[in-house]
């Protein structure tokens, strides 16, 4: 799922989680992460994951999308679990609950919280120039998204070479991404020109938290 789509839910979602204060949500995420890091009790971790699933179930958020995205850590986790000799079910479940709890809490956060508030809160612990990069990166996502969507449309209309011609296939992907890179660099130049014309010299004072 695209980040731009997730942002839409964060901005226009109507669940009680969307209305909950950012501070409370981020504290909750912190608590979940702390529990995941510190605890190895299957009851605690299992209970935590169950609680998160209940939150997902009883709020009008896009449930299937959230659960699908939060399952992503399992891909690497399987690799990791297979590498543990003589692993027992309990151990596997502990790791699975850790991974899924952390992922679910974060995914819930981004699905229900406007990115400005998330980065604004992070700005309390991160240096200003880093927060500026984060904000600009996020904004740039949307500027480039249109170009990106056009590229994907091109792929759809004009077709990719078949996989059975692997070199041509990879070359086509390479050319498309290469085009995208050049377009992005040009966008970066234009973005900077606009910033300079609007008085930007060395600091993003506009992004300082109130």
């Amino acid at each position, binding site marked *: 799922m695209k980040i731009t789509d997730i942002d839409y839910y964060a901005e226009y979602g109507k669940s009680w989680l969307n209305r909950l204060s950012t501070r409370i949500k981020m504290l909750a995420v912190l608590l979940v992460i702390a529990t995941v890091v510190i605890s190895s009790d299957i009851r605690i971790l299992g209970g935590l994951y169950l609680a998160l699933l209940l939150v997902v179930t009883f709020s009008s958020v896009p449930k299937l999308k959230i659960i699908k995205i939060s399952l992503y850590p399992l891909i690497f986790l399987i690799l990791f679990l297979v590498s543990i000799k003589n692993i027992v079910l309990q151990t596997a479940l502990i790791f699975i609950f850790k991974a899924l709890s952390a*992922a679910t809490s974060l995914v819930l956060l981004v699905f229900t919280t406007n990115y400005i508030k998330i980065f604004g809160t992070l700005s309390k612990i991160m240096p200003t120039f880093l927060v500026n990069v984060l904000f600009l990166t996020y904004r740039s996502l949307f500027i480039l998204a249109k170009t990106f969507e056009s590229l994907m449309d091109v792929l759809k209309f004009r077709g990719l070479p078949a996989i059975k011609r692997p070199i041509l296939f990879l070359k086509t992907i390479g050319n498309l991404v290469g085009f995208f890179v050049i377009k992005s660099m040009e966008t970066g130049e234009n973005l900077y020109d606009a910033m300079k014309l609007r008085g930007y010299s060395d600091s993003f004072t506009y992004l300082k938290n109130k």
Partner: protein
Amino acid sequence: MSHLHIPDGIIAVWLWILGYLIIGIYFIAVYFQLKKTVEYKKIAMISVLGALMLLSMSIPIPFVLPYHLNLSALLGILTGPFYAGLTIFSVNLILALVGHGGITIVGLNTIVLTAEAIVAFFLFRLLRKSFKKIFPVAFISTFIALVISTALTVGIVYAGTQNLDYVIHKHNNICTDCANHDHDNDYHKGHEEAESFDIKRFIALVLITGTLGWTLESFISAFIINYINRVKPDLLENNWTY
């Protein structure tokens, strides 16, 4: 395979804190470099390239297994070693927020991918002096960068999972009823062969999945760089650093 998709709660606390500390030192260096060179244009470029990486990662390459582009090596070649880390950090943080890799692992992830970008940059520069054709130069630089960053990943996973006893085996101070603990129950079958993280098995799995990934990414990066070289070669001259 070089991107650490390790979830939270697996890697030892000391290691991911160390990861953040190292990144913190790097950010201090970047801050002073920016102040000294007054090249704030790079902030805009860094951000846009970060967005590019995020968007490109959502292009699924349906090749045997669905593969997602990383582009850290390409980033290193385009931006140089110094600023690549900034882009990579912002990308990793945003990815962690959507559940791709643990939030505690962002520091370590940034180190791994920045190392990849740095290796790719220097190798590309070095090989370009000796070889005319850009495709093989780009391919080799990316491939070796990916291998090295994967090795770093394996090292981190190994270092960070040395003491998994607190999860795997409960005979430690936390055990509340150790004296009466039944050592003959099913949980303790094979107790003499305790659960342990087998690094050799992990490396084998990484090699199997990684080799295809490295090859794909290297081919695609080489084609990308080849395209850029034909259309806008000045982007590869790299006037970003120093």
